[in-house]
């Protein structure tokens, strides 16, 4: 014993430990077992008209009504096809969880309708936000899992969605209790196609695309977001085109692009062109945020031919990471953003002074004494009106540019919608819906023929046929409605 003790002391403590460790490993974990409850998979039942819930697949037939009485799941590998004129009526705050594919294929004469039981729209300028059913979230939304390869929605009404997920963890990855989106897509290799459809109402982002290829064209978005939220919010890894949409009454922005939260895959790259954006950004209280189109946090892309009417801010591109009156700005990939041919209109001087959003804090000075600015979009000669020559001397992107000549543009350059009186009678933002108005360009509109057609859509999704996208190339007229009849068909 004496001897072994001395030996032990001489022994390096580390090898002593490792030696004994080996003895543990020899003996330990004799009977280790783990049992985890396997996921419950019910084979999708072929959907029949009437009440639906649980796992379904197959075809929803034309002009039939389907009452959703609990959450609906489309299993991975299964597909659900919705024929024109089918009506899906939610009876409570239920959701579609899409692990397979969903094809909602309405037509111009027989659109598909997703709505809430017996709910009427309350579209009048005096309706308070707190009591407007559009902002309640009467049913959940369409939630695509990482395994959803195709979420294709054509000529479909999606009304009154946006209830937060409240029951435990939803049966898909990537979403948590409390998330509230009308449409959610997250497969980086999947395709999200939304065409000729209508999204009405919501509580947060109407569409949250966390990753994936998309084509969002010729849709009408109304009353998106309650007190915050974008109509089409692209996060890290979203690639595609968003064009010819009418966005009206968004809480924050119409389309927004950010590269936030994208480990490993592609950089967010969004082309936003030929959109008409009206009365947006007024239900967001955060200063400096919320208006029309927004690029931030590492996103890149192109923004051309957009018509921005009475929005809180014009095209907003974050050009430097800094504070905006206490709110954070995080820089977009400005080296790879191109923009121009924007038609701006505002009833008010304050709106004119934010066509090119202004950074309130101008004290920061960058390299070589050049003023730094957090906001980067500046007047382009191709814009209407062309403010380039009217900018005060020393102007730099994000600097204030007010002058009596510029202020005199309030109410000028009316884009001449067919039926949407400008200046507006009510305060901008109070008309957050399109019903009763017509945003086609009347003849003689100064937006006609001013579009830029010298660039290509990204066209990241398959095209053609019932399941592919129909991509409309950049238009000659600014805005969503083309005088040649192309563009938005609503």
């Amino acid at each position, binding site marked *: 014993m004496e001897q072994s003790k001395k030996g032990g*002391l001489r022994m390096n403590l580390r090898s002593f430990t*490792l030696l004994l460790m080996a003895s543990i490993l020899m003996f330990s*974990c004799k009977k280790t077992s783990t049992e985890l409850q396997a996921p419950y998979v019910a084979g999708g039942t072929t959907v029949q008209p009437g009440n639906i819930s649980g796992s379904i697949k197959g075809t929803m037939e034309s002009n039939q009504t389907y009452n959703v009485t609990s959450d609906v799941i489309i299993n991975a590998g299964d597909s659900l096809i919705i024929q024109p004129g089918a009506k899906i009526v939610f009876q409570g705050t239920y959701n579609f969880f899409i692990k397979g594919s969903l094809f909602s294929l309405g037509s111009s004469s027989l659109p598909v309708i997703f709505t809430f039981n017996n709910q009427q729209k309350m579209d009048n300028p005096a309706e308070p936000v*707190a009591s407007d059913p559009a902002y309640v979230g009467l049913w959940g939304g369409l939630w695509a899992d990482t395994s959803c390869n195709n979420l294709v929605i054509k000529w479909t009404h999606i009304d009154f969605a946006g209830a937060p997920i409240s*029951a435990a963890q939803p049966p898909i990855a990537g979403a948590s209790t409390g998330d509230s989106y009308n449409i959610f897509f997250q497969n980086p290799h999947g395709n999200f196609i939304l065409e000729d459809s209508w999204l009405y109402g919501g509580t947060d982002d109407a569409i949250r695309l966390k990753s994936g290829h998309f084509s969002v064209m010729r849709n009408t978005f109304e009353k998106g977001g309650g007190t915050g939220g974008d109509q089409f919010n692209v996060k890290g890894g979203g690639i595609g085109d968003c064009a010819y949409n009418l966005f009206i009454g968004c809480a924050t922005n119409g389309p927004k692009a950010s590269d936030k939260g994208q480990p490993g895959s592609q950089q967010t790259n969004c082309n936003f062109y030929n959109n008409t954006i009206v009365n947006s950004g007024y239900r967001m209280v955060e200063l400096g945020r919320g208006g029309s189109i927004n690029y931030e946090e590492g996103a890149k892309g192109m923004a051309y031919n957009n018509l921005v009417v009475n929005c809180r801010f014009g095209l907003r591109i974050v050009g430097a990471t800094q504070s905006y009156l*206490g709110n954070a700005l995080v820089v977009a990939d400005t080296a790879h953003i191109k923009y121009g041919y924007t038609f701006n209109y505002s009833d008010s001087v304050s709106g004119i002074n934010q066509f090119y959003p202004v950074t309130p804090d101008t004290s*920061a000075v960058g390299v070589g004494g050049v003023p730094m600015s957090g906001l980067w979009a500046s007047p382009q000669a191709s814009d209407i009106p062309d403010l380039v020559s009217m900018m005060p001397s020393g102007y730099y992107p994000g600097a204030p540019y007010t002058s009596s000549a510029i202020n005199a543009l309030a109410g000028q350059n009316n884009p001449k919608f067919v039926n949407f009186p400008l200046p507006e009678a009510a305060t901008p933002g109070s008309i957050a819906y399109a019903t009763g108005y017509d945003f086609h360009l009347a003849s003689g509109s100064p937006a006609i023929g001013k579009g830029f057609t010298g660039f290509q859509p990204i066209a990241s999704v398959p095209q053609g046929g019932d399941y592919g996208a129909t991509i409309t190339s950049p238009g000659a007229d600014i805005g969503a409605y083309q005088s040649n009849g192309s563009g938005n068909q609503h």
Partner: protein
Amino acid sequence: MDAGIKHYKSKSILYLHKFIFYLSFTLISLSAITPSAFSQVLRGKVTDQQTGEPLVDATIILKNNYKKYNSITGLDGSYIFKNIEAGTYSEAIQYVGYDEQRMTVNMEKDRAVRNDIRLKPHTWQLNSVVVTANLSKGSDISARRVERISSNLLNIISARAIDNSPDITVGNVLQRAAGVSLVKNSSGDGEKAIIRGMADRYNYTTINGVKIPSPDDKTRSVPLDIFPADLLQRLEVVKSLTPSMEGDAIGGVTNMVLKEAPAHLTFTLNGSLGYSNFFNNHTFSTFENSGAPWQTPYEIHGSGYAPQPSDFNVKYLKYKTVKYPVNAFINGGIGGRITKNFGFLAAVSYQRIYKGSSSLFYPPSGQPQPIPTANTPVFSPLEYRTYNNLQSRLGNHLVLNYDFNEHNKIIFYTAFFQLDRIEHRNLQQGLSQYLHLSGQDYVYDRSLFQRQIIWSNSLQGKHQIMDKLSVDWSLVYSEAQSKTPVWIDQQYSDIVTYDNSTHNVSSEQKNLQDFPFIFTHSKEIDRSGYLNAHYKLTDRLVFSTGGMYRHKTRDNVYESYQLYAGNQPFTAIQDASFPRLTRVDTTDGLTYTSVENILAYYGELKWRFKKWEVLGGFRVENTHHSYVSELSVYLPGKTGSYNYTDFLPSINIKYKIGDKNDIRASYFGGISRPNYFEYIPVNFSGNYFDQRGNPSIKHVQSANSDLRYEHYYGVEDYFMGGVFYKHIINPIEFTFRSQTTSQFVLEPENFGNATNYGAELVFTKHFRNFGIKGNYSYTKSSITTSKLIYTKDNNDNYVILNSTQTRPLQGQSDHIANLSLLYKSVRDGIEAEVSWVYTGQRIEIVSPFKDLDYWQKPTSQIDFSVNVKAGERITLFAKVTNLTNNPLVLELHTTANGYYFNNINYPDQTDKNNIIVRHDNFDQTFFIGFRFK
């Protein structure tokens, strides 16, 4: 009332001025030397005739017909009479339990005389065990004795040391032990212990050796700030396990030994009033918590109920100020023997403490930016937090012992601890509060009322069945609970204008945002039984075997109800209207039930041979853990069960070199079980990031070796130096997983192998009236985990690359040091202590991105306490903590400029190599009080 042992007479008159004087006394005055009139000096040392150990507080009386002098021996047993007149004296030495000795001393003029005395114990107390009994069990001497006798590695802090220390909760006491650092809560109190660089998951806490359940909704760890320090007889930090101990400690075990039934009727009382300096420049803001609901709406109405806004009372958001936030605590105890066989001790402790702190925080943005360089940090707006914490801490403890006879004894312990925390946290996010700029602020007011309870009951028996066979057993029932009847996070945005000339901040527009009412319940119940048998094979060899079984259940509830406020203009909460609820979340990752059954058994041999003592053997622990979560049935892992068995060898070897030196070596196998929620694959929101469990998590195994040298001299003087090495298999750390392609979730994972090694030094040295105590430990651990780099690729695209980074374990500091200077004058009845604790830098938050971990800067805190004897049984004391108002600072170790700082001149950013990201300020806390024994 026989108050037990009285070692000395002291002044019966309270000299108030003296007390005040000593309050302000400093170290400098400690060294003052009294001028002398006579140069005759008598000095010496009083020791035990048998053991040679110095005797502290022995009374020395020196007298002749003209003069009489009294003195008392100091901490090293020495005494000194200065300035005595020349002449012949009779010297009498008295000490309880020892025969009095008398002798004649001749003091010649200008001579110094040395007279060492060896006292002989009373003959009926020859047994050394009896001598121990005569020492107060809470004394430092007894603590050292337990440390030395123990077969395994311990560090002990005695009740006496706690009394003299500035600490009033167990959490704060623990930081005085070697190799221990603390994770502090928002009010600056130590809540979790990191032992030898191993975070709380690697340690467990016991009361009298019996494990206690945790009220924490996430972890197994017991919040150490719930325990008032006054109930302790001693606090043990166990650093090497024996086969009879539960094996789930890799860092160590914190064992609270509560006070025992005394041999004689004893009554103690102490009370104190105090104040926190924080409230010199902050008003204390709180809310009325009466009527707070102990049940959630679903528990009241059933789960089919649709909650209405009227179910949620916003009155808890009405804040009031407290003009005089005076802290108070009172502790009392009574104990003794009712009959010869039946003894008891009952103790109560109540503390009501107002705590405040402020924190400046630069929250990390979800991800950095790839330009101008990869992983350039980006920050969310600055947060300025103010915490107002009212803590009511109640501790009760009852011990009943019944001795049937010499061979059969039973003890019943019950201990009840309750901590009520009423917190108003005001969080200003934005510029006005700290940077004096106009802009938009976001104001978050949190009203939180939390009650945590730990209730532990044990019945223990000891039976000497035969000469060679003894048996002991314990039956334990324990509960731990936490509830938050009030948890409301009100929030509004506020557009403010800062006036540069008047420095006034005026609010232009406030908008109330939707906000949640959150209810959490957590309840853990332990039912355990222990049985041990000891058989003396020979005089030198004892075989022990035994086992335990524990059935543990854990029920967790998390419910959140969000009121719709819809950005309505906000003036006062009572004028706000709430038309509906926007969210009802009754289930998330923190709603679950878990059951854990542990069956363990062991065999050990204890062998004494000449200078050797060896304690070794094996332990087997079988764990069966299962959970039921609220996960959707469509996802894997709604329920899970785990069964594993660990075989844990251990050996502790002690070798004596002479009387004063011991060498120890030890090895033990330890494990650490994952926390309950760590199995549950459901998201919940954490402090900074969403979190979720990982059902494939494995428990941690480790091999731990220690080598220690101990040198004892004097009564309490000793030196220990040691090294340790830990090899850890499957350590659990949190990492960021992309749950999908674009969502980070903080998840526990096993990380291959990690190592942790270090060295510890502990020493105590007394020089008559002065003492110095200290410890130092060096710890180095290393683990390699995955990290992300957000950068540009060759085609100028932004990409996120996967990488790895090697770093210390989260919470591990390289250097930890404690140093205390003690002063004790028995003649004047003064004891004083200045304590310094240093904790080296450590990782506070692990970032998913490379090089962006949040490090806590080294902290250095000085505390002070003084005790003044004011009567035979009364001591007055004062305690001051955080004398130098040491802040807690977190920083990023990166030279990259922090973005968002560019156009704002942020405070504190002076260091080019680091970015300060958090700065907490606690200020000093004062207490003055009395102790009656």
